[in-house]
Every structure is written in C-alpha cells, then in structure tokens.
C-alpha cells in the first residue's frame, strides 16, 4: 500500500470519506517509508509511530461515524499526517532545535500553529531536522547530522527547515511545518523542489516557536502543491492572544474553484535579483516561469528594489542581535543539560560554551558586539534605519505592481561541506530571501524547473502585506499549466 504516499491531499481526503483505505493504512505507509528511507536522508530527528497510529485509529472511527451521518461536519485535515520542524513545541515530543543545549527537553505545551492543526484533525508524524536554532542555510549546522537532499544525496537540502522540505520531497510526509526568519522555508523549498509559504509577519502565532530573531520569525508550511500549502496556512493563521504580535485581521479562505484572471495581475520583476554571478540555468528557469505567467495573461513589468544589496548586512546584524538576547535563556538552570561548576556563573560559561554549536556561538558573538556599548549606533541602530529603506522599497513597488516574482537563491542545492569553513559565503546564499523578512511581506516558493544536473529550481512570489491569498491563487494557476511540482526524486 506504499503508493498511498503519492496521493494528493485532496485525493487522500476523498479516499478516507469513501472508505477506499483507512487513515491507519495511510499513516502506516508513511511510517514504513520513513523507516526505509530516513536512515539515509536524516529528515526526521524524532518519529512518533505509536502516537500517529493511535490518532489514526481515532480518525478512522470518526470517518466511520461520519459515513452513517454524512451531513455532520468533519475536521478539514482529519487523518492527514504532517511533520513539524523541531523548533516548534509539541507537547510530549522532544524539542532539540537541532542543538545539544536542548538535548532531552520535552515541552509541556503545544505551539499555537501545532495546536490549531491538531484541532483540524491532523496527525503528527514527528519532528524534522533543522540548523541549530534555525541558524543556517543548509541544515549542516544541526548537532544531529546533516539532512541529505532527496534529489542528490551529496547535496544539502537547504535550510534551516531542510528536514521538513526533504521530508515532503521524499514523500516522508505530505505536509510539513517550517519557520522562515531569513528564507528558511523558501530556500529549502527551492532546493528540494516543493512549495512553501512564508506568511506576512504577525499572520501566524509564534507562541511555542523557539525564538531566534523575534522581529523576523514566522511559521510557514510545505507541501507538494500550493493548494495544499494554502490549506495548512489558513488553518494555522490568525489572531492569538498568546502572541502580542499577531494581527487581528480575518484570514480569507482561498477559493481555488474560481481561477484567477491573470490579465488583471501586474507582476514586477526586480532587476536587483538577477546578479552576474548567479547560476545561468537558475536565471533561465526564472525567466521562463515569468514568460509562462505572461502567456497566462499577466502583465510583466521590470521594477527596482534599490536597497536589496544592503539586506544582507542589515539581516546579519539584526537577527544575531535579537538572537543574542533570545538565547540568553539557555543557561543550564531550568532545562537542558548542565555542566557542573563551583559557581553559577561558571555553569553558564561552561554549559553555553560547550553545548552551543559553532554557528550559534558566532551569531551570539556578532549580535552581542552589535548591541554593545559604543557600537550600538554604528551597527544595530544603523541596520534598523536601513531596514526602513528596504521596507520602503517594497511599499513603493506595490504601488505599481500586485506581486513580485524573483529567484529564491543564486544557485541550486550546493554540495555538502562547500561553505562550512566560510560563514560569509554561506550568508551570501540568503541574498534573495532576506528582504521579504526585513520588510515583513509574504513570500511563496514553488518549483519552476531543474538545472542541468537535475536539481530543482524554485521561484518566489512576494506580495503586499496580508496578500497570501493572491500569491496562492497565482501560483495555483501556474501549477495548473505546468508539471514541475509533480516531478519526484
């Protein structure tokens, strides 16, 4: 029955209702696939077979009851399995954030995003690998080993949500949650050939998301088709009293039954996103996808986002500064391992020095420096001002266009180990994803082609604040006309 893992979300739900197969059978098919493939891919850090099968039985009972009373309402994701990035808290499942400093930590509560999906009937398969505290672009910074790209085992899956993207690409889960602070949903989606949403900042609650850069962090989702991603987004988005930065705006239901008329849509193509050094077949695939949108009726316009090049220094000052404060809580006192010492101060120094990985320490150092007396104005203060200029670039652009189409990364998935000795080279992988986080606007990634080596290439559509629905509908129209998203490794 392992071909159950190739069903779309829609077909799976249809099959459940008709009784063609049970939730237990579908969950079992995914668990078997994980068992057969994940020793090699390392997409999961933890799987909960027992819990998932138990939940499947309960879901099967609900479908059986529903078949007797088909007018009764069913939760929208009843019996659908989902994987969760190991930086979101799930009650009773270990949460490591890819770090030794949280080894053994089991959260006593659920993240709001997780809670809402459980309420919608979803079944959690387990927790997926991530760069330590989401700091990285390749999943190589995980203390629990790199995740391998399902399209080529010698390549990274991207990061930081690399485990989630790889799990969806390899059909070890139909859906997965990720987080995007500087591109951590969109870039792995591109490297693994799947679709992924980075919502508007404040659209999805951060409660239960272990904090990295609090003014940038947002919970997102992966799926094979944008239609499936939209469903997860809708269910988890919206006001939450436990996160004061969530915004009190209605979350529209994305209506895919009525196709959008692309002739009414103006698509901006920012010239700053096409650099001389980028991989030629990436640029070609993006240009072709834009031509496709034009063929489908959209109006294409070249635009300028003039401060794009400054996003990298701005992000790598602001995010580490916020991280240096957020990660102060890991001190070996209340959770996680403790290295013994005579004094409490020495517990802090020893536990943090030994249990944080190299990249996390680097960013804590960088952020601490940027916030320290005498340097605050020159670094952190300056970065916050340039952030305003980046935000204004987007505000100006959205006066003339509806959405912005752009590459996600200058290359396809790079070889494991390529950038590990050069942090700045790794940071440069993020140049095209950082601006949306700094401005807070939503971005949707979806596959638009392959390079000469058969590695997937993704494109992002960025939208105005709270316009996720428009992004989903445009990308859905694109996916109806193309089959890139249907290819499997």
């Amino acid at each position, binding site marked *: 029955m392992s071909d159950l893992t190739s069903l779309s979300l829609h077909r799976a739900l249809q099959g459940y209702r008709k009784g063609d197969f049970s939730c237990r059978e579908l969950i079992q098919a995914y668990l078997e696939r994980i068992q057969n493939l994940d020793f090699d891919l390392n997409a999961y850090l933890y799987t909960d077979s027992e819990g998932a099968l138990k939940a499947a039985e309960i879901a099967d009972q609900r479908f059986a009851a529903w078949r007797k009373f088909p007018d009764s309402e069913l939760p929208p994701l009843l019996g659908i399995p989902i994987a969760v990035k190991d930086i979101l808290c799930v009650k009773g499942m270990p949460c490591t954030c890819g770090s030794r400093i949280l080894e053994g930590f089991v959260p006593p509560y659920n993240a709001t995003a997780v809670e809402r999906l459980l309420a919608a009937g979803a079944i959690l398969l387990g927790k997926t690998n991530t760069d330590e505290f989401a700091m990285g672009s390749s999943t190589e910074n995980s203390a629990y080993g790199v995740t391998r790209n399902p399209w080529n085992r010698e390549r990274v899956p991207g990061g930081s949500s690399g485990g989630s993207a790889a799990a969806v690409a390899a059909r070890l889960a139909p859906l997965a949650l990720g987080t995007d602070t500087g591109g951590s949903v969109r870039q792995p989606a591109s490297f693994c050939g799947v679709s992924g949403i980075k919502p508007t900042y404040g659209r999805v609650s951060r409660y239960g998301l272990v904090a990295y850069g609090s003014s940038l962090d947002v919970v997102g989702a992966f799926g094979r088709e944008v239609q499936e991603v939209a469903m997860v987004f809708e269910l988890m988005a919206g006001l939450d009293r436990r996160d004061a930065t969530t915004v009190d705006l209605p979350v529209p239901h994305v209506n895919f039954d009525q196709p959008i008329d692309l002739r009414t849509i103006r698509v901006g193509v920012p010239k700053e996103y096409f650099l001389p050094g980028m991989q030629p077949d990436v640029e070609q695939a993006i240009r072709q996808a834009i031509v496709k949108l034009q063929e489908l009726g959209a109006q294409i316009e070249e635009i300028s986002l003039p401060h794009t090049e400054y996003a990298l220094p701005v992000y790598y000052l602001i995010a580490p500064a916020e991280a240096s404060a957020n990660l102060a809580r890991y001190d070996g*006192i209340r959770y996680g391992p403790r290295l013994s010492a005579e004094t409490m101060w020495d517990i802090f120094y020893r536990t943090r020095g030994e249990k944080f990985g190299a990249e996390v320490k680097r960013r804590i150092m960088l952020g601490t420096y940027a916030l320290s007396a005498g340097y605050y104005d020159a670094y952190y203060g300056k970065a916050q001002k340039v952030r305003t200029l980046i935000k204004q670039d987007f505000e100006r652009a959205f006066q003339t266009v509806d959405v912005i189409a752009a590459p996600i990364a200058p290359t396809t998935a790079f070889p494991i180990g390529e950038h590990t000795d050069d942090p700045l080279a790794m940071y440069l992988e993020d140049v095209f994803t950082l601006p949306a986080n700094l401005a807070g606007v939503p971005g949707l990634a979806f596959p638009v082609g392959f390079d000469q080596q058969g590695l997937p290439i993704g494109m992002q559509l960025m939208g105005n604040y709270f316009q996720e629905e428009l992004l989903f509908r445009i990308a859905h129209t694109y996916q109806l006309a193309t089959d890139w998203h249907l290819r499997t490794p």
Partner: protein
Amino acid sequence: MSLTREQVDHIARLARLNLSDEERERYREQLSAILEHFQRLQELDTENVPPTFRAVESHRQPRPDEVQDSLPRAELLSNAPEVEQNQFRVPPILD
C-alpha cells in the same frame, strides 16, 4: 575593520561563553571579515530615516490583567537538570 583579542574576550564575557584559544582566534578573524563586509552600510545617508524595529505593527489593545492558571509546577520542573524541594537547584550565589 579588525577586532582585537581583547575585544573578542570582552564580547565572549558579555555573552557568557567559554571559548577555547582556537575558537577565540577563529571568531576574531571571521567576525572581522564579516564586519568589514558590513561597512558598506555606512555608504547610506540615514540621517533622517527612522528605525524599523518591527515590520508590521499589530496595534493590539492590552488584554485585561486577570489571573489565569499556569502550567503545573511538576511539569515545568520535569525538564530541570537539578531539582531540590520542588525548586530549581543551583550552587550558592551569595557568600
């Protein structure tokens, strides 16, 4: 832009990180290179630009200040490395 050993020691102390000699030297080199690259921000005139601390403001009203249940103490202590008498145990912090 080049950081000194003393600056690196100072930052590590502020961040409460024990670093080996090798780490100190590596971070000194890497952070110097990164900060050098970031100098380009100084090209921009931001004299009259306000800072953005958060890209989207939520404009939320504060909730009423009401007492609510919190998580049970036993659950919270279950993750602690050392517990004594239903409390987190730490070494003496006062002489």
